[in-house]
């Protein structure tokens, strides 16, 4: 890095450090003068919000871990001790429990933004792929975190979800035994889940670093989906977007704090205030709300797939459900190649736009609704319809790309923003 361009800082200490390790130069390049499209809307706040929530989860989690006892006989009471006897423990725990929900709200909106404005397309495919990996890591982390307080839903959720792996042919049962560390969800399960729950957020953080590093190579997309053509199309990240991000963060914090301080248990399940009891099965086992869409996909495969006109079952319903559920995430990885339209932003894609808003978005809400209901009609049907819509959204993209006539793209970002007076803008 000896040849890296370096700045001259006024502060001699900063300068001394920067000569030897140019972190200040780097910070300034990536977050100070970094040229950023001038036309972001508020959807572009959600990346910074996700980063903020991740840090909040790690900090609150470390404080919880200082008081949490990782043993089936004591875990539940240790969480209650945090709630009652640790100074500000109730707040730390409610921040952490609701923070997980906030994380998913923010990330789901962030992903929607990426899809709507075509941010996954070249040259940003890797950024998108890192993002899907982040989503998977979040899901694993949140699932294992929910097991830690060792309430009824912790225990039974863990039992149901780990059991899914038994659907995998040949090795399934061994995988389940490995996950459990025995022959049922028990103390070894709790121990390894805690170890992994502590580890995964830091793996996640590393992937976030890659996600952002790749972003700073390609630069940000923007609501028009066209690349900046020169300095008139961009603004330095600081102070313009730092200010806008902090404003957005404050609004988000009002939303977050409303849950933490006024409705901290609204997103949780009452049964998780009952200590885990392997002998009593809850009436309805439901995962946390952010898993409900995927849970609905899992349950919507109610039929086996076999060779026609024979009794040979190739994929039974359970395995089919598991495949569909993992497939619903896996399909995100190939989205950049399914969508072959050269135009990014849905604003200029008359079919794609409504395809997102009337197929993908409703399917997600339908699945979330069906996932929280018992496995009866009409909920199963709603879930199945949602599943078909969800997969249809992705699988029909190649056709849409071919038949759609995109609207004419603006000449540059500055052009529509400044009403055609780009030349006069300073």
């Amino acid at each position, binding site marked *: 890095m000896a040849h890296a361009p370096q700045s001259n800082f006024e502060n001699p200490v900063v300068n001394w450090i920067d000569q030897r390790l140019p972190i200040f130069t780097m910070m300034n390049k990536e977050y100070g003068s970094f040229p950023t499209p*001038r036309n972001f*809307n*508020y*959807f572009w706040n959600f990346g910074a919000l996700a980063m903020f929530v991740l840090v909040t989860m790690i900090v609150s989690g470390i404080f919880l871990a200082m008081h949490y006892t990782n043993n089936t006989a004591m875990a539940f*009471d240790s969480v*209650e001790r945090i*709630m*009652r006897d640790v100074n500000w423990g*109730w*707040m730390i725990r*409610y921040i952490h429990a609701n923070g997980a*929900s906030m994380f998913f*709200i923010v990330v*789901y*909106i962030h992903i*929607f933004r990426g899809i709507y404005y075509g941010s996954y397309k070249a040259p940003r495919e890797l950024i998108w792929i890192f993002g899907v990996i982040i989503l998977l890591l979040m899901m694993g982390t949140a699932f294992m975190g929910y097991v830690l307080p060792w309430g009824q839903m912790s225990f039974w959720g863990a039992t149901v979800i780990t059991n899914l792996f038994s659907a995998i042919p040949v090795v399934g049962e061994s995988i389940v035994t490995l996950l459990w560390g025995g022959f049922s969800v028990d103390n070894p399960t709790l121990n390894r889940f805690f170890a992994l729950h502590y580890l995964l957020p830091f793996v996640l953080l590393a992937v976030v670093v890659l996600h952002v590093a790749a972003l700073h190579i390609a630069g940000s997309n923007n609501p028009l989906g066209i690349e900046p053509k020169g300095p008139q199309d961009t*603004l330095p990240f600081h*102070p*313009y977007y730092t*200010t*806008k991000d*902090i*404003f957005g963060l*404050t*609004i988000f*914090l*009002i*939303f977050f*704090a*409303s849950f*933490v*301080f*006024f*409705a*901290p*248990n*609204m*997103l949780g*399940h*009452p*049964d998780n*205030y*009952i200590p885990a009891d392997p002998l009593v099965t809850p*009436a*309805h086992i*439901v995962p946390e*709300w952010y898993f*409900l869409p995927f849970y609905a996909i899992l349950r919507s495969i109610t039929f086996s797939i076999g060779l026609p006109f024979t009794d040979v079952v190739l994929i039974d319903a359970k395995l089919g459900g598991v495949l569909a559920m993992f497939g619903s995430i896996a399909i995100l990885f190939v989205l950049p190649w399914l969508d072959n339209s050269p135009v990014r932003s849905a604003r200029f894609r008359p079919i794609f736009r409504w395809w997102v808003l009337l197929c993908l978005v409703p399917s997600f*809400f339908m699945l*979330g*609704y069906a996932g*929280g*209901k*018992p496995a009866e009609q009409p909920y199963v049907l709603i879930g199945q319809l949602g599943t078909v819509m969800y997969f249809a959204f992705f699988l029909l993209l190649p056709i849409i790309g071919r038949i759609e006539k995109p609207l004419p793209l603006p000449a540059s970002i500055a052009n529509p*923003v400044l009403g055609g007076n780009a030349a006069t*803008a300073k």
Partner: protein
Amino acid sequence: MRRLRTLLAAGAMTIAGLTSTALAAGNAPVPPAQTWAHGGVNSFLSFFKGYDYASVQRGFQVYKEVCSSCHAMHLLSYRNLLDVGFTEAEVKAIAAAQEITAGPNDQGEMFTRPGLPADRFKSPFPNAQAAAAANGGKAPPDLSLIVKARAHHEDYIYALLTGYTDAPEGFELSPGSNYNKYFPGNAIAMAQPIYENGVTYTDGTPATIEQQAKDVTNFMAWAAEPKLEERRRVGIMVILFLVFFAGIMYAAKRRLWSEVH
């Protein structure tokens, strides 16, 4: 502005999606909503409400005299009662009335001593098996968190305690179970615990069934969420600060961006 509206709509839809995950509560009817001084442990729009401590204290009396022979509340310590307005002397006396097994002493033997304020509430049974054996196979649940551990919270507990009636024609009650309108399945192993004048309130409040049910529910609500008032108080300050700060940031952002728009 249009974009902001889209954003708000997206937010509203998220919330609608979230609240729809609330569960249907089986076959029992929805318990009627009561008014609670603190609004309910899970109530959102109760920013300035707090517990009715006179009622919480009476509720403790009901718990101590009626429920504690079957139900533990092992997450509470006697010292916690200071928070609901009992005096130090009263708490010491309440604790000392219990015989606590402690030890081992330096001879290696367990011994009994009068309870101290730092002791947890004494449980009526040594373990869940003993509790179940003494109650026809159904262990009475610990009541420390019961208000947060049931859908409909206070309203459900109140409805349950006042919901004992004769079983309707044709309803098969197995021996040892009792008919309750609000219990899921309607057959509960707990006999009606609260009767008219089952306790004599020290503050002279008439001990009707409704009054006792309300008081003991208030007590259990406080036991389940003892930091409710602190939480709401801090929350109001946090929200006020954030709204103020958002205003400043909005002004700063507007001013900065007015140069480039």
